[in-house]
């Protein structure tokens, strides 16, 4: 090994790296069928991409293989970047994990490196130069694909968070000075904060006297969120509004009692209908049925 290094004193210049890479690519193209099958076999062996059928894996493997060689040959990773993004878009919804994507690219890198070892094993000097040319390019490709995948994932997550946030907290004026705030889904601390902000702003803008917060659609609540709810009720009072909380599920009621939230300050009514009736009473409204004219004659 030491002897080999001593025998290869020069670093290959850029020009010769290019020539060498082209030679490598030619070699890898020649053995395309065999290497591709080897790769697909090793993917299955390593239990990667289990969400996909063997046929799908083979099809993707072929496409990745060709893109990989092209990136090696031209040194341009743009096409590969685009492909990696497309691939991620297709496979993320199917539950493919980051480690699987990184895994298959590293496997391909390994399969190709082994093939190169086999081809150049007669001449160590040459093999060293081949490695010098191949390794950096291969690393860059692996990097590109992995980063592309993670970025796509993050984009999807961001998009979903945004969607949730937009759907999150409507503050609805129902009558003069009466607001309803229906909450659906899990409340995390960030959402709780946003909810409070919107409610307090809503009270201000609509000059609300009474607010009904309906949590029928909230499956569970932890201590910090429960406390946040109590704080929201208190803050609303400081703005001169009374808050009625409706639709507490049995689980939430138990949680609230167990964690010892001070319920004395909370005005709770069983369901939204009862809450609105209570609010109307507080505001001095009285809802009466319109008398049926036919009854007058009776």
């Amino acid at each position, binding site marked *: 090994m030491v002897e080999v290094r001593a025998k290869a004193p020069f670093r290959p210049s850029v020009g010769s790296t290019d020539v060498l890479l082209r030679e490598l690519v030619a070699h890898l193209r020649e053995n395309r069928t065999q290497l591709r099958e080897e790769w697909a076999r090793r993917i299955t062996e390593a239990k990667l991409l289990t969400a996909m059928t063997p046929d799908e894996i083979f099809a993707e493997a072929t496409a990745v293989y060709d893109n990989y060689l092209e990136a090696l040959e031209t040194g341009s990773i743009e096409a590969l970047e685009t492909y990696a993004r497309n691939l991620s878009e297709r496979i993320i919804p199917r539950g493919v994990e980051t480690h699987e994507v990184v895994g298959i690219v590293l496997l391909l890198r390994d399969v190709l490196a082994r093939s190169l070892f086999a081809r150049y094993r007669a001449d160590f000097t040459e093999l060293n130069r081949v490695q010098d040319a191949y390794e950096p390019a291969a690393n860059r490709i692996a990097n590109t694909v992995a980063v592309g995948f993670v970025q796509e994932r993050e984009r999807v997550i961001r998009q979903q968070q945004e969607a949730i946030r937009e759907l999150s907290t409507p503050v609805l004026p129902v009558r003069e000075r009466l607001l309803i705030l229906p909450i659906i889904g899990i409340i995390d601390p960030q959402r709780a904060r946003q909810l409070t*902000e919107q409610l*307090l*702003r809503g*009270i201000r803008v609509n*000059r609300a006297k009474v607010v009904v917060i309906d949590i029928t659609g909230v499956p569970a609540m932890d201590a910090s969120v429960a406390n946040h709810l109590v*704080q929201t009720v208190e*803050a609303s009072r*400081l703005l*001169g509004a009374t808050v009625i909380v409706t639709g507490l599920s049995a689980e939430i009621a138990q949680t609230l009692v167990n964690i010892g939230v001070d319920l004395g300050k909370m005005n709770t009514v069983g369901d939204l209908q009862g809450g609105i009736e209570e609010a109307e009473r507080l505001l001095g409204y009285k809802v009466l049925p319109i008398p049926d004219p036919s009854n007058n004659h009776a």
Partner: protein
Amino acid sequence: MPVPILKQRDYLIASIQAALNDEDLKKLREALVAQVGEFRSRGVIVDITALDVVDSFAVRTLRDLAHMSRLRGAETVIVGIQPEVAFAMVQLGLTLEGVAAALDLEEGLTYLDRKTKERARTK
């Protein structure tokens, strides 16, 4: 900076226009408690719309003011607390318990009218 106190029918209205230091707050409290007796007022409104920060001393002073003027026969209502201020106060545990709050001056007046009417009825 002294806070102007306006007499309006049976009520005293103190409208805070700028951030106050502890000394100013104490003076305001003393002036209001004194004037409640002087003008035989039935209600006090403190408008803090202009305050961006309300600390524990301010909250304590306002609460004391409410309790003191109640002892002298006047109901107190704090109006114009900003939404952000309200939430910050609650998070710090400064909830002004036992003190009435209303959205703005108009609401405060409505509240006091109702309160004094209730009191007249029970008498």
